[in-house]
């Protein structure tokens, strides 16, 4: 009644390719981690607060992809839309709430944590709790040096490189980047030189929030969209920021090392242990070398 399905894949997939797959898994995992963590790192770098609302921003970004689907626009346009929504949300939140908490870091933790809960609840109320489906820009697999691999995961490498390039260009190629680096190094001194650190903070938070929302939209095609979209990534993202300090180069290094460790351990033992790799190795690393992957 049904045509017999092919039992063996048409493309050769021999064990000799295991190494290629391992490398691809490791590189794409590192890329995903980098994309997820960038927004958190940029805020931590300048403001010295860990943005506990990060999962909320990821979720909001994911739902921007859903709105793009509902509006029937090209799914690629959902990505810049998520960035814009994130920046706008970041500006509002910084001006209304965070601005008053810079001298009270513990309160800022509680405030951002609460904010994350509020954002996720608002998304839940409006869009519902259940899994939703969005149009995807890309689906399916491609053949790469004899290995069949998820095309979208390969795109994540390009996204991560674009994130890194944008960050480097901003920090080193613009006046704002220079001021930001000055604020990171010594805020009182920067202020005494006439740098408006309030403005730097506003722009930084807005930019970090925008990147987090964009990251949320970027991971939707890999997972299933529901209000808890961002939560499983949170522990990994926090750990990576702690070991990376405030430099994007360190973050890249941390993502590659810890991402590879996670993939190797998942592949050769089992994924349950693999999932513990990142937090455990991160904690050990901080114990041995408190600066983590920070280069300076």
């Amino acid at each position: 009644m049904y045509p017999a399905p092919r039992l063996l894949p048409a493309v050769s997939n021999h064990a000799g390719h295991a190494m290629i797959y391992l490398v691809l898994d490791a590189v794409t995992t590192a890329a995903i981690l980098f994309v997820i963590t960038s927004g958190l790192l940029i805020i931590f770098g300048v403001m010295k607060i860990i943005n506990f609302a990060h999962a909320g921003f990821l979720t909001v970004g994911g739902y921007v992809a859903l709105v793009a689907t509902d509006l029937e626009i090209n799914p690629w346009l959902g990505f810049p839309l998520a960035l814009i929504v994130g920046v706008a949300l970041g500006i509002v939140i910084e001006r209304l709430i965070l601005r008053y908490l810079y001298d009270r870091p513990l309160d800022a933790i509680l405030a951002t944590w609460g904010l994350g809960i509020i954002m996720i609840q608002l998304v839940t109320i409006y869009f519902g709790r259940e899994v939703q489906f969005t149009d995807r820009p890309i689906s399916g697999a491609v053949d790469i040096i004899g290995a069949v691999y998820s095309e979208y995961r390969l795109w994540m490498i390009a996204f991560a490189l674009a994130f890194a390039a944008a960050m480097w260009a901003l920090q080193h190629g613009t006046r704002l980047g220079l001021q930001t680096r000055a604020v990171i190094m010594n805020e009182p001194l920067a202020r005494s030189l006439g740098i408006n650190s309030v403005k730097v903070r506003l722009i930084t938070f807005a930019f970090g929030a925008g990147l987090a929302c964009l990251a949320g939209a970027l991971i939707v095609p890999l997972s299933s969209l529901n209000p808890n979209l961002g939560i499983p990534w949170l522990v990994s993202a926090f750990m990576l920021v702690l070991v990376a300090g405030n430099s994007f180069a360190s973050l890249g290094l941390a993502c590659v090392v810890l991402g590879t460790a996670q993939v190797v351990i998942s592949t050769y033992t089992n994924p349950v242990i693999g999932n513990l790799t990142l937090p455990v190795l991160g904690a050990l690393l901080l114990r041995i070398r408190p600066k983590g992957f920070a280069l300076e």
Partner: protein
Amino acid sequence: MNRKPFQLLTGAIVAAALAGSAIAQGDPIVIGVPTGLSGANSTVAPAVVQSSELAVAEINAEGGILGREVRLEVADDESSAAGAQRAFDDLIFDRNVDAIISMETSAARNAGLPIVERGQVPYIYTSLYEGQSCNQYLYANGAVPQQMVGPIVDQFMNNDGAKRFFLVGSDYAFGRGMLEFTRNYIEQAGGEVVAEEYQPINATDWTTVITQMRRSQPDAVIMSTAGGAPNVTLQRQYKAAGMEALVGNLSVDELTAQAMGEDAEGIYISASYLTQIDTDRNRDFLARMKEKFGDDYRMPNDLSAPQYDAIYLYKAAIEMAGTTDTDAVIDALDDVSFTGPRGTVQMNHQRHAPLTMRLGRVQADGSVEVVEVFENVNPGDQCPDPS
């Protein structure tokens, strides 16, 4: 003094009151429905609530149970053990429900059972599950591995010549229980299990598991994740990776399959309920659901149809016992049957129900075609020692 007119008048008032509201006598019978409105089960829980609401509305329209109105109390168990503890506590001790009837994760059921024991209320569990949950207050009317695994594995081995199986699931009672049974079944049938892998219930990245699948080159993959979001994530990543082995899924419901569309194409599922069941009773059930819920209608599925049956089974048990008293209802639940959208269901086999199972195959548009029907499949030994 002539009292007659006065007596006549009171009689008339009482009669009018009785006729006007046939179900106004006594307190309502309250059914608690703890279910996963959030978390892994959130894709299917709204359909479960709708099934319950339809059954209760129909029962009340026909005069309730023993002349008493039926009321639902729904609580979110967050698809988790901790959420279930709150939901069961709230329903049993604060909202004083007469019974718990619900589709939930196995984690939630296991967390709820001790509370049910303390509160001493009947509990009908309506989800398909890994089997062998036995408790003096518990009945189950969903499918167990003995009923679900056979149709899929037999199809793969006998029709498609599959020998090598890769098992993958969520790391909790359902995932492990289902796959343990599956492994034994495959090995007894002469097949080989090349690997058995688990991920945490909220896992978002299955890449390394898929890489292991590539390496071990199975003929078929049997998936047993938590229903809803994990199913979508795994199936989507499996397809995106270009994998082409046969897929049998023990936990995907028709609703989720439909939402996944082409990502789910070709998956085999084994279900006691599919919307394609070709009976008047099922067509009538679907029509009533659509009429009652209109735009909000959620497609009934294998996790929500048993909920509808279970409420009617509870009604029949109360009517047989003549009371809502827990012990009497528990005794009666063994003896009553109900013919609903899935056919006739009676939980007379060690508190579980023989069920007619359908092997379905998901089409490109997400609809599920019935490939084969297996009549009255026995649930096997679930609770051999009566408690």
